[in-house]
């Protein structure tokens, strides 16, 4: 193993933190604050890409914080999955910060947005690269505090109602996680993920550790919005400011999915009871989410339910537990974050142009803004899984993995969910784009200064097309990441050194 680039490993934490401080200092000048924020987000994207290059060589990068050796100190670990997640976080951060530069009626809202977004990014990146269970809890709290303030931003009546739901249910989830972390320590005597994995791999599972671990999986499931604990998501995401809900839609539930993937692949690398339960949960999540979307008539509420349904696909890949299925899950994560954030962006632009996000009150966008229609069609068709866009490859791999393991019901539900997703997307298409505006041609609003928002949406659409057309290299990376996940031995050796404790 070669030596790890320690500075590069802490960069995903230091960069957003530094940007946060810089934005705080330049708070008086809106332009400076926004420019610094954009610079910081681009920097995070570059750091993420550098991590992908380093991790892509096959080594697991490890850095022991403060020089304390593995089970005693806090370890930062970056394998291919973590690196990819940090990179995609940087991409979404850049797009969101860019979108937020579009002219808005309330400058104060935009300024606070930049501060809080970078605070949130510290937590998200920390959760992706930590190798310690309690440290993961702390990063969850960091991102939670940021997300609380972001969702309340603006704070009108409707938004506060959604904030209350979001705050209370997420607090309960993190409390469960804290309890689980404490009890895991009480029975296993360690909080280091690699050492836990080593105990499980050696077959001496500490007595009483299973129950808190299941509690931890429950806490992650609430974060990831899995059935039956997804209720908080469609009850709150649609009230936030558009860039905020796009950022949340792209990143936050995926932190929960990442934590699930990390914990389950480390502790239970072979298919077992956990995977059976997750398989049923995944099937229910896919189906209930998409059916919930069918009942909605507002753009962001439809999309919120689709987040739930799409998370089901990723957990399906985890539950099938073959290297191919894991590769599908990793590919799905990468593809979904880009597509989902973009759909929220385009929904926001469409709402600004038509004056509402209720589908009956929208319309006429295809005639008025054909480019927006094209930009909507790309992520929408990708979400539904139409070739050659990125969603097709993600679903294709998962379905193939499902057929190989004989999970017929799960494959059937996955395909059915795809059809329903297409129906939902065509509902938005018909209502918002094809149909005439109910108030005629006068219904459209003249808005200016929206160029940054268009660039952000176009950039993400271009990435979606690129992932679709160049699926080979991305899938190779996902497959290599899945191989790392499937054999936790490498992770354990990299963190603890080959001798262990």
């Amino acid at each position: 193993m070669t030596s790890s680039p320690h500075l590069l490993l802490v960069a995903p934490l230091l960069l957003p933190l530094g940007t946060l401080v810089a934005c705080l200092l330049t708070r008086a000048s809106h332009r400076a604050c926004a420019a610094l924020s954009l610079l910081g987000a681009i920097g995070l994207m570059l750091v993420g890409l550098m991590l992908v290059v380093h991790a892509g060589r096959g080594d697991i990068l490890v850095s022991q914080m403060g020089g304390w050796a593995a089970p005693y100190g806090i370890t930062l670990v970056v394998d291919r999955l973590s690196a990819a997640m940090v990179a995609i976080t940087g991409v979404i951060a850049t797009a969101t910060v860019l979108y937020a530069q579009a002219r808005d009626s309330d400058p104060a809202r935009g300024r606070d947005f930049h501060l809080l977004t970078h605070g949130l990014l510290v937590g998200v990146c920390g959760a992706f690269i930590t190798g310690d269970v309690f440290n993961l809890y702390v990063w969850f709290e960091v991102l939670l505090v940021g997300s609380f303030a972001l969702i309340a931003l603006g704070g009108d009546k409707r938004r506060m109602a959604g904030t209350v739901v979001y705050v209370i249910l997420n607090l309960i989830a993190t409390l469960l996680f804290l309890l689980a972390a404490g009890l895991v320590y009480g029975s296993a005597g360690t909080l280091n993920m690699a050492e836990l994995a080593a105990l499980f791999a050696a077959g001496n599972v500490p007595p009483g550790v299973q129950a808190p671990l299941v509690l931890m999986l429950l806490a992650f499931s609430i974060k990831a919005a899995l059935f039956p604990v997804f209720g908080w998501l469609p009850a709150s995401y649609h009230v936030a400011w558009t860039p905020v809900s796009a950022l949340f839609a792209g990143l936050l539930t995926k932190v929960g999915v990442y934590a699930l993937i990390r914990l389950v692949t480390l502790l239970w690398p072979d298919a077992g009871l956990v995977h059976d339960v997750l398989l049923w949960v995944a099937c229910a999540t896919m189906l209930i989410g998409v059916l919930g979307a069918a009942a909605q008539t507002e753009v962001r509420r439809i999309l919120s339910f689709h987040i739930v349904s799409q998370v089901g696909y990723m957990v399906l890949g985890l539950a099938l537990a073959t290297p191919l299925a894991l590769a599908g899950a990793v590919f799905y994560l990468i593809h979904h974050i880009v597509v989902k954030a973009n759909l929220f962006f385009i929904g926001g632009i469409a709402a600004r142009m038509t004056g509402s996000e209720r589908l009956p009150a929208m319309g006429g966008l295809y005639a008025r803004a054909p480019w927006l229609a094209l930009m909507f069609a790309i992520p929408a068709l990708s979400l539904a899984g139409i070739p050659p866009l990125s969603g097709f490859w993600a679903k294709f791999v998962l379905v193939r993995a499902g057929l190989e393991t004989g999970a017929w019901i799960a494959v059937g539900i996955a395909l059915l969910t795809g059809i329903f997703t297409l129906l939902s997307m065509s509902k938005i298409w018909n209502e918002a784009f094809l149909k005439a505006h109910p108030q005629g041609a006068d219904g459209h609003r003249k808005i200016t200064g929206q160029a940054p928002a268009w660039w952000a949406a176009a950039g993400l659409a271009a990435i979606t097309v690129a992932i679709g057309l160049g699926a080979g290299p991305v899938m190779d990376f996902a497959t290599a990441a899945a191989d790392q996940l499937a054999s936790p031995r490498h992770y354990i050796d990299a963190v603890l050194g080959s001798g262990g404790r």
Partner: protein
Amino acid sequence: MEIVAAVTAGLLASIGVWLLLDRNLVRVVLGIVLLGNSINMAVLTAGRLDNRAAAFVSANGVPEFAGNPLPQALVLTAIVIGFSLFVFALAVLRRTWERHRSTATDRVTEVAEAPAPNLDEKTS
């Protein structure tokens, strides 16, 4: 000693859950605080409470019955985080009261479920 702490944590947790199930948002927030503190206590207890000497390492070596410092460090972190989140929750509660003139959970969540308002220049 552990059994007393464990029972206390359980008792606090049950009161916390009872408050959480209330229809009044003030009691829900208080329930979260109680639940959080009971969980802090559970985490502390999970580190065992038998050894009570302060865990200071001096030139004479480690005290024979040094308490376990790790859960103390964990709980200290959790208390700080929990306190700040409590303060934030109170701020949300106050703002919600100002906007809604109600702390009934049903009345408040009903507003989030209502159809989206049309965008005027102020709320885009």
